[in-house]
């Protein structure tokens, strides 16, 4: 093995010494020139096979080998770093709106900085800083929001004036600017060389690298990876990592067991010029002008400038595979708007001579976030791809997280926003991907205001009531392909106005949602919540109960007809899922989870349930339409429709009964609303959905019933301090940290996943605490609204971030939910967060750089709400809820 290693190393060194690898060359390398013999034959087996020799594959190999895994083979169909990695612009930028992406970029930057020292390979690393320009006030707000989160991460960053921009970069026309964000730590690299340096370091650690070897498909047995088939033979392996970039989709579909990886490529253009008369200084900052859709960086004294046009050109939809990215045409007419933007930004460049227009395809995902993690269907099949043209920024961090995931079983950060399991096969239609990426690519530069929605790939999954609700003025948003109502526009309202409700300030649906909330509080509303994920788990004997008791943290051995709120925890006690489980009978359970849990929860349970033919689990999501009847009069509507006693004595909170509603029988009625308000969830077999809906609406008329949407629900649940999974709760949050110890069967001393960790937390205390903040000096009409991700300050010191927020129509204040941590003032070490620590502090929430005073609370305002309740009702509250927004 040692001899093999040496030969490989020399191969890599040869390439590193070849000047054509040293930097982006202007002419595309011909492939015929060097057909060097393969240095070594493929090994018969390995622990890990990585497919793809771009920045992702080499970064995964590098980090796996750092973590101690040595038996790794990296296969590249062409040459190392010869695909998108080779052609990409090489900008390392930390200014990312999503926290996990920001952290990955920050890590990448630090990694690349020391890579040359570590490997001796020149990576072209140059700390230039970057300036993001704002042509509008709204853009400046979004930059300020990013600046706030960069600052609390310890990444230097400041909002600067146009004049300061001119001082930092003499070529910029600043007349149309309102401000900018300067991140001095951002850098430039030669991306291919970074990739080669990572590969070199990995090969020093024992990773074998084979070029000109393509994987034809992955072999799977009993749901596990067993090997790969290549054009040069077979390799047995336990783990396979798909880092095939734009070919990842095809590769995923190539084996017998399909792995859905929803990515699609678009052409991406950038321009290279000859040096300026006075060549640009190598330290000149990189410019990002999102309103002009362009970026501009120094390139050998000239410039490199590209962008993200409004009308992207998707390619390879039909799945044509090719070894390397060759012969893609330059399209100047297509580039014209970006060239105009460039000359508008830097008019002095008119006389600069063009060298080349580079066409470099980039890979995009359906939600503009990259894809990593393990396949839900094939164990040991990992994926890292879909970088939405930020591959160099994410490369280091993403490779590290995936390597940790493989070695430790979980990454060191919450990566749910990037997890492959957020998608299912439903996002893998070629048509869907083609249409969606045409929206995603321009979105990279578009202004993203709170609550923006995708416009393409819609109306895929709908409730049977869709047309009825739409005709009544429903406005829709989408989650996991499912259309859900935001709110209902009352007849007579100007519809055009509402479609332009894109603002960082008070939106124009404010009063509409307000009246829906009021109706929920005073009368009754109906919300279609059919998108929920629904599983049925049953067995012939006690197997179902026994397994679920181990998999879920709350006690499920409850009388038939009870509903239990419970977490599905991991070994560290963190929430993998948060759900409601109804015990339908002794041996079967009905489980309700957030919409986007469909794939993740299924695979989590599948992998952990005993393979016992007497135990069955079925996904019944599509079989039921769910209607949420919220409000004090819900009980009246339902009792008139069912002729069954449903007063609180007969139907207390957290119960589930099968009953008839109108003519329809077998409706599962649960006394929960996911908001803390009184009411019922109706799970209706879909063929009865229209009937039950009509009956409810007709009967409800005299009680003032109306339709409502998820925005009203959100306001209700947040003012009641309900956390929900995917936004507030994640795999790194335990029940102890969000005041839900009562949902854990710790006292019963029954074994369940995560028990040990929770017991330890119970003894030692928690290091973060879910807290509710009521904004004090915030003017709803005039001030910027909170969204999520705003930094929280306690006594002037950063203690955490918000996770969700909403306007409470009851409190007439904004409510933010978030986690408070306790950092030691000197060492920055994390300390235990006590109730005292929360209660004794002055809090501020930072919204785009402006701080608002906030009152912290650990418990909801139960007193404030109880007087509105009917007297005969006990002060019972469900202390759980999720909307899965």
């Amino acid at each position, binding site marked *: 093995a040692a001899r093999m290693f040496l030969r490989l190393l020399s191969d890599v060194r040869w390439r590193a010494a070849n000047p054509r690898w040293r930097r982006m060359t202007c002419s595309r390398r011909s492939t015929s020139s060097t057909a060097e013999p393969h240095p070594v034959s493929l090994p018969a087996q390995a622990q890990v096979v990585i497919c793809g020799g771009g920045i992702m594959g080499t970064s995964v190999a590098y980090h796996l080998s750092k973590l101690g895994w040595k038996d790794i083979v990296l296969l590249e169909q062409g040459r190392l770093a010869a695909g998108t990695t080779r052609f990409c612009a090489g900008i390392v930028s930390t200014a990312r709106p999503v926290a996990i992406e920001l952290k990955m970029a920050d890590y990448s930057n630090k990694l690349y900085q020391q890579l040359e020292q570590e490997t001796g390979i020149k990576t072209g690393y140059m700390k230039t800083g970057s300036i993001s320009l704002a042509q509008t006030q709204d853009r400046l707000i979004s930059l300020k929001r990013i600046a706030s989160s960069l600052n609390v991460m310890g990444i230097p960053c400041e909002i600067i004036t146009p004049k300061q921009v001119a001082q930092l970069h003499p070529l910029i026309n600043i007349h149309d600017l309102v401000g900018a964000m300067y991140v001095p730590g951002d850098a430039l690299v030669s991306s291919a060389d970074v990739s080669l340096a990572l590969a070199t370091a990995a090969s020093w650690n024992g990773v074998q690298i084979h070029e000109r070897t393509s994987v034809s498909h992955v072999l799977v047995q009993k749901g596990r990876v067993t090997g790969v088939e290549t054009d040069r033979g077979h390799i047995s392996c336990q783990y396979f990592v798909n880092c095939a970039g734009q070919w990842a989709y095809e590769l995923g579909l190539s084996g017998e067991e399909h792995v859905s990886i929803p990515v699609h490529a678009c052409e991406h253009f950038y*321009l290279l*010029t000859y040096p300026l008369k006075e060549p640009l200084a190598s330290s000149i900052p990189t410019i990002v002008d999102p309103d002009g859709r362009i970026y501009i960086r120094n390139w050998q004294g000239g410039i490199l400038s590209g962008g993200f046009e409004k009308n992207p050109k998707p390619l390879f939809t039909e799945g044509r595979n090719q070894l390397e990215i060759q012969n893609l*045409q*330059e*399209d*100047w*007419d297509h*580039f*014209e708007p970006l*060239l*105009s933007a*460039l*000359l508008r930004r830097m008019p002095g*460049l*008119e*006389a*600069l*001579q*063009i*060298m*080349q*227009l580079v066409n470099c395809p980039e890979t995009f995902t359906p939600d503009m976030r990259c894809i990593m993690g393990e396949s839900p269907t094939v164990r040991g099949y990992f994926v890292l791809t879909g970088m939405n043209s930020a591959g160099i920024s994410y490369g280091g961090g993403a490779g590290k997280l995936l390597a940790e995931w493989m070695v430790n079983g979980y990454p060191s950060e919450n990566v749910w926003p990037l997890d492959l399991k957020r998608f299912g096969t439903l996002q893998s239609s070629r048509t869907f991907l083609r249409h969606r990426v045409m929206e995603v690519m321009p979105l990279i530069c578009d202004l993203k205001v709170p609550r923006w929605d995708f416009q393409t790939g819609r109306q895929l999954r709908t409730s049977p009531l869709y047309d009825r609700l739409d005709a009544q003025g429903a406005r829709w948003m989408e989650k996991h392909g499912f259309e859900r109502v935001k709110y209902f526009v009352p007849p007579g309202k100007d519809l055009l106005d509402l479609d332009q409700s894109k603002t960082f300030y008070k939106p124009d649906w404010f009063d509409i949602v307000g009246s829906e909330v009021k109706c929920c509080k005073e009368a009754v509303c109906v919300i279609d919540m059919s998108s929920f994920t629904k599983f049925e788990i049953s067995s012939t004997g006690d197997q179902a109960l026994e397994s679920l008791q181990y998999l879920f943290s709350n006690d499920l051995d409850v009388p038939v007809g009870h509903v239990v709120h419970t977490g599905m925890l991991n070994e560290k006690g963190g929430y993998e899922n948060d759900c409601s489980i109804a015990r339908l009978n002794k041996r079967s359970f009905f489980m309700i989870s957030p919409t986007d849990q469909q794939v993740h929860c299924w695979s989590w349970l599948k992998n952990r349930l005993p393979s016992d033919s007497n135990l069955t689990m079925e996904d019944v999501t599509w079989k039921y339409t769910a209607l949420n009847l919220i409000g004090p009069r819900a009980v009246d509507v339902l009792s008139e429709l069912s002729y069954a006693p449903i007063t609180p004595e007969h139907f207390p909170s957290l119960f589930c009964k099968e009953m008839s509603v109108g003519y329809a029988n077998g409706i599962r009625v649960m006394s929960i609303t996911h908001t803390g308000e009184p009411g019922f969830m109706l799970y209706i077999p879909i063929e009865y959905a229209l009937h039950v809906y009509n009956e409810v609406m007709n009967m409800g008329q005299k009680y003032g019933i109306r339709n409502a949407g998820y925005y009203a629900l959100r306001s209700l649940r947040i003012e009641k301090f309900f956390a929900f999974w995917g936004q507030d709760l994640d795999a790194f949050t335990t029940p102890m940290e969000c005041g839900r110890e009562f949902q854990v069967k710790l006292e019963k001393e029954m074994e369940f996943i995560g028990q040990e960790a929770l017991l330890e937390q119970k003894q030692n205390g928690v290091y973060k605490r879910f807290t509710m903040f009521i904004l004090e000096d915030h003017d709803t009409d005039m001030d910027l609204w909170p969204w999520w991700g705003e930094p929280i300050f306690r006594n002037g010191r950063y203690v955490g971030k918000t996770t969700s927020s909403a306007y409470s129509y009851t409190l007439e204040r904004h409510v933010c939910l978030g986690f408070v941590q306790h950092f030691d003032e000197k060492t920055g070490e994390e300390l235990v967060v006590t109730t005292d620590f929360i209660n004794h502090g002055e809090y501020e929430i930072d919204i785009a750089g402006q701080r608002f005073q906030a009152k912290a609370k650990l418990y909801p305002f139960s007193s404030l709400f109880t007087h509105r309740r009917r007297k005969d009702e006990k002060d019972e509250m469900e202390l759980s809820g999720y909307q899965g927004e």
Partner: protein
Amino acid sequence: FYLTPPQVNSILKANEYSFKVPEFDGKNVSSVLGFDSNQLPANAPIEDRRSAATCLQTRGMLLGVFDGHAGCACAQAVSERLFYYIAVSLLPHETLLEIENAVESGRALLPILQWHKHPNDYFSKEASKLYFNSLRTYWQELIDLNSGETTDVKEALINAFKRLDNDISLEAQVGDPNSFLNYLVLRVAFSGATACVAHVDGVDLHVANTGDSRAMLGVQEEDGSWSAVNLSYDHNAQNEHEVERVKMEHPKSEGKSLVKQDRLLGLLMPFRAFGDVKFKWSIELQKRVVESGPDQLNDNEYTKFIPPNYHTPPYLTAEPEVIHHKLRPQDKFLVLATDGLWETMHRQDVARIVGEYLTGVHHQQPIAVGGYKVTLGQMHGLLTERRARISSVFEDQNAATHLIRHAVGNNEFGTVDHERLSKMLSLPEELARMYRDDITIIVVQFNSHVVGACQNEE
């Protein structure tokens, strides 16, 4: 009332037609690349007609526009028949004999013309036998006349025009036992039509014109700009030579009454036309034919009305003026159009609009920097210019449609104003004729490579 852009487009495109000369072995050896044609009615029904056909027994292509007046019957008949007369006039003696023998022995006829017709361009089935017999008589005479000389295109065109007009006149005088046909030939003779016909064969372009339609050549100058060259003379009161000609043909005493209010005998705008026997026959002949004709003719005030000062007929002829032009590589296209277009647009604008349209559509090659020295500013200028061109051309796939869009929709700045276009196209039938005339356009595109090659051979 407002028409949306798609509605406007559906109106403008209803009659558009394109023909591309087929390529052989990837090469188009014809000097014509193809043509675009279109019509926009103002009269209901439209009185303009158009024809296009490839000669099969001789080389060359025929294209023509016909502007009818006092009904569409004459324009319709001319559009069906004239090209056959021209084709026959061009045929060599042997071919004429062959055809005659075929007819004689009931064998299949050699095809003479290949028509390129829009579905709305129809031929009258009822009259085909009658028309065929007249045509046969013509070629029999040509066979008898056998001059032995090679046919001169100019002469052939003139003969064909005159012969057809003569046949129209004779058919009306003789009548037909079939009452429908009898009425038809009379309507053809009593209505009128101008004709502007182009014959293209290699670099030889002949335009035969009778009346006030017009043929115009689009020429691209060395600097890329466009200019217009007239290939026909209008036969109307604005043409001094034409006024002179009419005056020469009649006694001096009629000098004042011949042309009044810019019209022939104060009535007719074109000074040459097919049909219009009211300006050709003697008063006696007119009266006899009308009286013996069907009732519908008798009831028609127009046909019974004898023009004032009608002393020395004929006052009108169908004889065309023929202009011969040798095509050069810079001659990019030919526009044939009825006066509906020329009333609204100057020929120079027509040349520019069509020229820019055609180069925009067909020469929008992708740009490659290659090894050239190009600055960002130069590239930007080039790209914005290309984009501006595309955006105005974008809607039309047909040069004639594009021209009509401009003719009807142009504002004072020479750009298409959608609002104006919408208004003009939504005029009620009875008002439309007051604001615009029928427009018929054929744009023929030449193949500069073939033209250049032919030129070098000669």
